[in-house]
């Protein structure tokens, strides 16, 4: 029956409904919270517009090649990370196991950040916003002391949300409100990933597109705020001198790498559900460029808002000084305005120097307020929430902002969960007759139970540890072995032919050079530099301690030895999987070679790989 059509191999493997879903999923995975709260911060501290130069160089030589490599790998081998690396070479299966392990660790702590976002979201429906006023103390004569000494926003974050302990060794108790929110977040993740890409493919339409809408709304609103232009000028004024600092180049390389969510195994999983004849080269370039453009686009409203906040803080400082002067010198109201403040100051200082010095006025400097740079959770939950209080209609802005953060984080969670789910599905952990819903349910339930540790009083210190050690160094190592594995063990000539078959074009010289030489070299340099920087000083953290004498400044503390051991374990465990699994297969091979009944392991090619 030569005329009968071939049974397509894609039948048993789920598929994307359309190409747009796949691209959107990859973009959603790459575009995450880091685009909003890490990239603008890096721009700010590394010389504004000048930071874009190392950023785009890193994108060109590290980001796009590695992304293309992962997408082509997944599409060609049509398996999740563990299966794919096993197919390339059983000795490289450790690379897949390593990425799977990193995906597990990151999924655990990433959802806690979403828990915090959800907590703020459900608290945004109140009037006034709970982080705008300090609660009263017991006898109602004044405000709560901890709140009064710091700010209401800080109090709400550190006390009402985290209920943070002053030291990482003190675990504190489980915070029930965080447990409720955590359960909700895992329920949402379960709802969206219940049947793998069948359900995430539908959910991604909302979670990947919605943030762009909100960013645009914030952009329009942000540009109308007073002081926005100050913030934007401050952000984008290039300071080319900063390029002399190697730290800037390192930060650009690491930012691109972590921003594209490489080496998690999630991208390989997404690409494995593609039909074989798909142009992965165009996809990779598109996803990388959209990710970088999103970072730039997001930094504009962020800096408008930061400029607005700095300007209002500056005006508050001026107003407070003016009130003090008027009260002390009994001058009529509105005699000193912000415009003639400096002339009045000089007049009073020359006429009544002792009385003026006795006032102990704080100097108000706009540049100083603009210089206060924050990244990460501090930006979202402290700085931004404070700025939102000052905007008219703050409830609406708060709700929009936190839904946006939640969507950004959720679409990245889909990629993380897919990186855990797909390899487990292929390893046949559960019997084939059992529904997929069971496996995703088990994953979500176990993750929820383990993540309860992060709802303790010391939880946020542990999140920092996981973020710094589990989500950084292992990824660099895994990515390095990915490139080496494909280029030198699978052999680049073979891979070029596979990619040619998939895209229909010969592999460009750019890809050849970057895959063979530049990317592995760059990864090695970044890894070494990163490691040396981490080891330069003993790992320390800043703790929120109301009893500290410098309160409201955070207290700088060193990690106790047992915590340092855990840090090392977190960083080393996924990396150590690579040689361990290779050793395991070596032993298995030696035992197999002693038994003559087994033939040599099959050699395969991209087209012959079974799903």
């Amino acid at each position, binding site marked *: 029956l030569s005329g009968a059509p071939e049974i397509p191999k894609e039948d048993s493997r789920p598929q994307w409904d359309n190409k747009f879903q796949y691209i959107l999923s990859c973009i959603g995975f790459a575009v995450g919270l880091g685009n909003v709260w890490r990239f603008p911060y890096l721009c700010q501290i590394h010389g504004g517009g000048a930071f874009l130069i190392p950023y785009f160089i890193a994108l060109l030589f590290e980001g796009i090649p590695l992304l293309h490599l992962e997408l082509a790998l997944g599409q060609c081998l049509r398996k999740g990370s563990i299966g794919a690396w096993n197919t390339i070479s059983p000795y490289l299966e450790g690379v897949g196991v390593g990425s799977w392990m990193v995906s597990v660790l990151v999924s655990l702590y990433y959802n806690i950040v979403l828990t915090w976002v959800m907590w703020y979201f*459900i608290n945004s429906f109140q009037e006034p916003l709970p982080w705008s006023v300090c609660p009263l103390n017991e006898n109602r004569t004044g405000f709560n002391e901890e709140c009064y000494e710091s700010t209401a926003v800080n109090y709400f974050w550190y006390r009402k949300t985290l209920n943070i302990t002053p030291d990482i060794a003190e675990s504190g108790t489980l915070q029930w409100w965080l447990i409720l929110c955590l359960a909700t977040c895992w329920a949402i993740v379960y709802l969206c990933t219940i049947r793998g890409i069948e359900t995430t493919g539908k959910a991604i339409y909302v979670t990947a597109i919605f943030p762009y809408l909100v960013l645009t709304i914030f952009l329009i609103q942000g540009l109308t705020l007073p002081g926005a232009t100050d913030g934007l000028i401050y952000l984008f004024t290039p300071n080319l001198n900063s390029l002399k600092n190697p730290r800037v180049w390192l930060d650009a390389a690491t930012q691109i790498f972590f921003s594209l969510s490489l080496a998690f195994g999630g991208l390989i999983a997404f690409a494995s559900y593609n039909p074989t004849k798909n142009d992965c080269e165009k996809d990779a370039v598109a996803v990388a460029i959209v990710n970088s453009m999103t970072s730039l686009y997001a930094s504009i409203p962020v800096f408008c808002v930061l400029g607005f906040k700095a300007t209002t803080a500056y005006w508050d400082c001026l107003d407070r000084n003016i009130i003090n002067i008027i*009260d002390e010198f009994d001058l009529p109201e509105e005699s000193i305005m912000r415009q003639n403040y400096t002339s009045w100051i000089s007049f009073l200082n020359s006429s009544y120097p002792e009385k003026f010095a006795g006032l102990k006025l704080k100097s108000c400097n706009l540049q100083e307020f603009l210089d206060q740079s924050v990244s990460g959770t501090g930006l979202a939950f402290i700085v931004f929430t404070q700025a939102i209080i000052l905007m008219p209609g703050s409830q609406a802005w708060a709700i929009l902002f936190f839904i946006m953060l939640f969507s950004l984080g959720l679409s990245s969670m889909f990629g993380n969960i897919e990186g855990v789910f797909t390899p487990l599905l292929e390893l046949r952990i559960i019997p084939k007759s059992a529904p997929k819903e069971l496996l995703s349910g088990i994953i979500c339930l176990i993750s929820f139970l383990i993540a309860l540790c992060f709802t303790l009083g010391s939880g946020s210190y542990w999140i920092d540890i996981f973020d710094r050690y589990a989500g950084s160094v292992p990824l660099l190592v895994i990515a390095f072995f990915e490139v080496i594995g494909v280029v030198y063990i699978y052999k680049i000539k073979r891979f070029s032919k596979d990619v040619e078959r998939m895209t229909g074009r010969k592999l460009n010289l750019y890809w050849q050079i970057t895959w063979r030489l530049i990317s592995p070299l760059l990864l090695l340099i970044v890894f070494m530099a990163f490691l040396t920087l981490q080891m330069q000083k003993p790992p320390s953290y800043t703790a929120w301690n109301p009893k500290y004498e410098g309160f409201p400044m955070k207290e700088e503390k060193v990690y106790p030895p047992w915590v340092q051991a855990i840090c090392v374990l977190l960083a080393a465990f996924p990396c150590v999987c690579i040689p361990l699994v290779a050793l395991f297969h070596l032993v298995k091979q030696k035992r197999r070679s002693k038994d003559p009944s087994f033939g040599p392991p099959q050699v395969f090619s991209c087209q012959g790989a079974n799903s």
Partner: protein
Amino acid sequence: MLRALLLTLSVVAIAQAELCKPDAQNAFKVRISIKTALGDNAYAWDANEEYLFKAMVAFAMRRYSSKSTTQISNVLLCNVTDRVSFWFVVTDSSTNVTTVPGSEVEAAIRMTRNRINSAFLLSDKTLQFLKITSTLSPPVEPSTPVWLIVFGVVLCLIVAGIVFLIVSGIQKHKKKNKESAERENLEEKVEVTLENGIPCEALDLKAGRINGVFAADDERFTSL
């Protein structure tokens, strides 16, 4: 006669000046910020407003100790500045030369603070009695925290979604099982009625089971 009158008046004036001066005993400083409170609707502070202030303080003293006979003339104002701030002191109505203890004045003002504020269209922050602190009102808290309500709504929606997806998944699974079971049944029935690849119905029609050739040969042989 005239000289005696002038003398007594000047003595009284000096005595009053002694009683009311900045940081005098039982004197309080008041600071008023009209423009901050009322903006464009601000009124000017003049002698009439001072008269109203004296009246309000006298009213407060009368309310506090009901037998009090404090007159407006018992309230002395001094050192009025452009800021609008001044000092005031309340003299004892029975003897015009001693002042009412500060604690009594403070208690009286505290009791009537709201009325004094509203007489001037000001608030605790814009009409400040510098030594008299005000108790802060507690924020309004609803009986159930709002966030619990929102949380309940969100959770219900999610649980409904999960249940719906699981149920639809089970239904699809059952339908797929039923379909594959029906297909198997059909194949069995087809096997039963096949013999040598030819359906039995066809065989019966062609009378294939009984071979007429052999049956016809029976007549050649004699019966035993």
